[in-house]
């Protein structure tokens, strides 16, 4: 009978208390290191995205400033008397000091074409283009605005 009672203690090792104690040690640190690494990658990506968004904001801000400036210049040009609106006259027009200070290396191109084909006889086409430099020192996409003025009918 004694033999019989001893037999069940030859259980597999994994079921005996204390035998596999050392196997799990250190797993927590590996898990922690993995989670911290993943978090670091996620944070790096987020910072990159923040950087891109900031660049986009700046670009949008510059474009909006250029749009306001173009609208103001066109307002002045279109109210200039028809006969005074000449290519020589528009050469004297310059960008405002605020725009010069806010846009990197801005350039203004103004053209006045009399009796233009698109406007017909007795018209003047005013073309305005504002450009500025980007980070790579190239030109950003220019902002264009075109308007036509017509000779007032003689009473």
């Amino acid at each position: 009978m004694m033999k019989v009672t001893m037999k069940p203690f030859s259980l597999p090792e994994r079921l005996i208390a204390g035998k596999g104690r050392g196997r799990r040690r250190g797993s927590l640190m590996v898990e922690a290191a993995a989670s911290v690494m993943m978090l670091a990658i996620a944070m790096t990506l987020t910072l990159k995205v923040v950087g891109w968004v900031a660049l986009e904001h700046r670009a949008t801000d510059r474009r909006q400033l250029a749009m306001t400036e173009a609208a103001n210049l066109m307002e002045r040009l279109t109210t200039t008397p028809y006969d005074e609106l000449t290519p020589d006259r528009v050469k004297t027009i310059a960008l405002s000091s605020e725009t010069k200070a806010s846009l990197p290396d801005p350039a203004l191109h103004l053209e006045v074409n009399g009796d233009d084909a698109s406007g017909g006889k007795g018209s003047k086409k005013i073309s305005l283009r504002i450009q500025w430099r980007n980070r790579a020192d190239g030109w950003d996409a220019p902002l264009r605005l075109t308007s036509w003025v017509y000779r007032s009918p003689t009473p």
Partner: protein
Amino acid sequence: MGRPLAIDKLGLSESYPMRVVRSQYGKSKKMLTSGRRRTRRGMTIIELLMLMSILAFVFGAAIVQMQLLMRLGHDGRARLDRAFAWERLGRQFRQDVHDATSAKPFDAGKDPSLRIESEGKPSTVIEYRFGKAEVVRTEAASGKKVASEAYALTGLIEARFEERVDSKQPFIVLVSKRKIAKVNDIPPRIEEIIAALRPPGNTENTSRKEATP
């Protein structure tokens, strides 16, 4: 011999009759399972503390990141709203000044305003007023208020109205000063909306004609 027991998996039932095994271990299935549970090592308090601190750090960093992204989204929306409001204000302001017979800026200390009058049927009086980070336009026809619109311009510090003359042509200018960054090192930006006013004696308004060449 009846249904198989967990103890059969250990090969005990083959060597010994089930009765014997049962007499040795009683409710064998339950006992062996609980015996197996006892072999698992628990976590020490140090490990638990470490785990909790790592989880706290991970959650904290995730919350900070989420806040940053939410603020980014909020800033983007605010910029977009401001850009739309500025665009609408520009169009409306020019339209009102072009149609006006007279426009008079008032600079009453911290509350500058512009009064635009146009003769017609009915005669209208439009008033632009600088409010808290906004420009408010109020329209009255025949002495009764008919419309009021607020143009919310985020970061607006000041807005005033000026009269200018360029080559005999009078202009009304809306000058706005706005904060473009949260840091104080960057100076505020001054932006203008220029609108041509009908010169005295000219009955034709300055609105640009539709492009119908």
